[in-house]
């Protein structure tokens, strides 16, 4: 057991435990904090992979930017207290996720498995040409090299090299432009009067729908709840 292995094990346990907490908790803010722990653990993995640049970029982008956006959103959409953590398809989702994990592990894990397709009727119909296939213990083409000392500068050069990643690099700028335009439009400050009018419209439509469904002659009165728009003073 080398020190790196110990660090890896600690990070792995922390990351997976925190991730499980994130997807099961009812308290969204604590979930966001645990998500930050996951991001931090990821930065630790990148350090173990000899990539300091991306470890730092991970902290900068995920913890410094994305987490803050998520926490702001959690705080802006209050009512996360007593949140129901899962929906009706949770069991199915858990089974699907577990099945996917087992499948990935069998296909790419360290165990070498030989599956004889001809023995199983369904599989033999699916994979007609092959009779047997080896799963797991993939023979990756290992490079056996250290990371070059100049990997940061190399990466910088590759980003603006026209034969490498110049086009995606420039597209990022336009993507970010579009994101900002859309998000600013969506999250703009709306006047209370505007909001009330919108909600009244929705309520009317819903009432009309309900009336049309029931085939009643007279439309129902507007539901009270829909009208009670908050005009709370923003801080």
């Amino acid at each position: 057991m080398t020190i790196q292995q110990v660090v890896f094990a600690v990070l792995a346990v922390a990351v997976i435990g925190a991730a499980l907490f994130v997807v099961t908790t009812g308290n969204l803010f604590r979930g966001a904090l645990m998500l930050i722990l996951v991001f931090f653990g990821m930065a630790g993995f990148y350090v173990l992979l000899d990539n300091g640049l991306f470890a730092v970029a991970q902290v900068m982008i995920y913890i410094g930017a994305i987490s803050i956006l998520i926490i702001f959103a959690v705080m802006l959409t209050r009512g996360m207290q007593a949140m129901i953590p899962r929906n009706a398809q949770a069991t199915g989702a858990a089974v699907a996720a577990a099945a996917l994990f087992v499948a990935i592990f069998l296909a790419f894990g360290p165990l070498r498995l030989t599956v004889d397709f001809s023995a199983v009727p369904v599989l033999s119909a699916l994979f007609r040409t092959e009779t047997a296939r080896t799963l797991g213990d993939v023979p990756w083409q290992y490079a056996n090299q250290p990371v070059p000392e100049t990997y940061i500068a190399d990466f910088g050069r590759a980003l603006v090299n026209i034969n490498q990643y110049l086009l995606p690099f420039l597209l990022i700028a336009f993507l970010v432009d579009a994101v900002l335009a859309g998000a600013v439009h969506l999250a703009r400050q709306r006047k209370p009067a505007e909001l009330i009018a919108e909600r009244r419209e929705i309520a009317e439509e819903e009432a009309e729908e309900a009336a049309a469904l029931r085939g009643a002659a007279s439309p129902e009165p507007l539901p009270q709840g829909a009208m009670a728009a908050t005009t709370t003073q923003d801080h």
Partner: protein
Amino acid sequence: MQNVINGIPLWWYLFVAAALFCIGLYGVLARKNAIAMLMGVELMLNSVNLNLLAFWRYLAPGSQAGLAFAAFIFVVAAAETAVGLALIISAYRSLRSVDPEKLDQLKF
């Protein structure tokens, strides 16, 4: 053939990444809150990034492909979160709910 860097074989990283991806998948499928679903998506993107950088380190440390893709995933993840959360906030302000099952009004 078994290649070990810093005492860690490649499949350890793949294992963690797969576990994280599946946890994220569960989060996306099983949560009742749009922000929580977005957190699940973040977990999945992170696991993909871990895979990319692990393969970069073990298979091609001299090339820039793994780094470039990981960097673009950073960018796209940030963009996706920004727009996603703006949508959720906008929907919340109109409808007072962040439950995707309740957001069946195609208007907003």
